[in-house]
């Protein structure tokens, strides 16, 4: 009797669990499915039946989007900004973190650490307006300016994650390298960089997502001239750009999601692991 009761209870949990996961799966899958199928429909076909699989492969949306020179400009802007920012971030954040982590007992480095950490609690709205003002006066309302801002803003979270990570690494190997006559630079590049790989992956993923998808900073820094828009700005302004053709809008959304989803599909195991490690330590 008791065994039977227990069995029913377990099954109840399994059933409700599967229902929960099923609903969650549908909530994610349905919007994505609709974006994909309607990107391949004409406006009329979508109007006839929004949910049906396209009867024929209609590629005019893609053709229109790709033949628009502006569009490739926006893709290029997003790519350039993301790639250069990430390269600079992965160069500078680990270096300063290494200096802090290995000199933590010195007052100067401890001060820098908390000075950089302070930014974690400041909402972006507080600096939004002064930054725009500053960038205007420096003539930096352009891609270079935006890249500098991303680099400057990346130190807060990046240093926090990296310093904690490096302080968890054993010191002995570095000491041995030092005794063998390695300079700081050699120790860093030959010993630290390989050991920091998981954290490097984490910061590359987190900051790439942030920069590729960011809306607020480009809106403030790049909104003036259309030639320097990024993809999120383009999408936001899509309605005014084209007479609103929603199947073509879906094509545009699909094309901006695709690069990141492909990267994710290829490296999802690594990405998910790296993000969890970074987040839990953070």
């Amino acid at each position, binding site marked *: 009797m008791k065994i039977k009761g227990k069995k029913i209870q377990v099954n109840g949990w399994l059933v409700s669990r599967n229902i929960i*996961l099923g609903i969650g799966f549908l909530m994610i899958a349905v919007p994505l499915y609709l974006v994909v199928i309607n990107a391949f429909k004409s406006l009329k076909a979508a109007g006839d039946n929004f949910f049906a699989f396209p009867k024929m492969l209609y590629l005019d949306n893609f053709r229109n989007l790709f033949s628009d020179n502006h569009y490739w400009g926006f893709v290029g802007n997003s790519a350039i900004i993301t790639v250069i920012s990430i390269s600079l971030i992965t160069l500078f954040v680990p*270096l300063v973190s290494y200096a802090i982590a290995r000199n933590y007992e010195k007052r100067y480095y401890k001060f820098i650490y908390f000075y950089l950490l302070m930014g974690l609690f400041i909402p*972006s709205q507080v600096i939004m307006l002064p930054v725009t003002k*500053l960038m205007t006066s420096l003539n930096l309302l352009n891609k270079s300016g935006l890249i500098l801002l991303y680099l400057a*803003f990346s130190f807060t979270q990046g240093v926090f994650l990296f310093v904690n990570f490096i302080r968890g690494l054993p010191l002995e190997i570095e000491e041995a390298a030092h005794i063998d006559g390695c300079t700081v*630079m050699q120790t860093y590049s030959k010993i630290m960089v390989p050991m920091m790989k998981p954290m490097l992956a984490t910061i590359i993923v987190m900051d790439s997502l942030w920069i590729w*998808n960011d809306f607020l900073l480009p809106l403030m820094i790049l909104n003036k001239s259309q030639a320097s828009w990024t993809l999120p700005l383009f999408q936001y302004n899509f309605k005014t750009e084209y007479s609103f053709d929603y199947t073509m*809008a879906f094509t545009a959304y699909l094309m901006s999601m695709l690069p990141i989803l492909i990267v994710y599909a290829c490296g999802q195991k690594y990405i998910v692991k790296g*993000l969890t490690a970074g987040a839990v330590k953070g």
Partner: protein
Amino acid sequence: MQKKRQIISSKLVFFSFTIIPLALYSFFYVYSVVTGIRYSFSDWDGISPDYQFIGLENYRKLVHNPAFWRSLKTTLVYTILLVIGVIVLALILALSLNSLKRFRGFIKSFFFVPAMIGAVTIALIWDQMFLRVLPYIGELLRIPWLSASFLGNVKTALPAVVFVNIWQAVAMPTLIFLSGLQVIPDEQYESAMLDGATTFQKFRYLTFPYILPTVTVNLVLIIKAGFTTFDYSYALTGGGPVRATEVIGIMIYNDAFQNMKFSMANAEACVLFIIIAVFSVIQIKLTSRGGVNT
């Protein structure tokens, strides 16, 4: 002598690592924070060459401005809905995923897809969902209240915007909870089972203490995201209808760039900063006790 020189040079190398980051951060970040606070005590419109410091005048006006209180309330409701929605859903999803034996890797990865997509893309996709899909379903099933977009209705606009935010924001906390759940040793569940603990007791006395530290991390992240939210309201409703979704982030943006009330917008931003700081401190104090440190 050789050794001494080496130590001095490595000290210099370490020091040189800090110069560029420190300069950039100080110049773009800290300088901006300080000027932002300074401007909040002035009457600058953001354009004219001269301005005056007027002390607490902006803050005084703010306190007497019903629109400010309204957007503060909207932000608070937004944050509460977001926190409850994300935490509850993430916990349920994490517990469900954790008990999964087959396909766990695939399903976990699939549930993480929304976190990859940008807020603007998501907002615009859901805009179309509200506009086309839900009315279509409403027509099909003859449910009249589904026929108009939730975003156009004063009562439903805010929950709809929060829903879209939750849709994306739930993935990361789920993952963090999941990694918290995975450190609980199986033996503890077995002994709890032997002691005859109910499902709820197991959750309350075993699972919950273990994941409490991750609750803290998640809460800090979500509370900040809620108070500073901007993208979703801006892209979905632009703050409307009738200011129903005008969160503080939108009010600050509009006051600064549309209404030319630059210094006022800075005062609003400073108030927001104080609120976030207070919430973070209270919240960390409340939840940092009583967890199992992992």
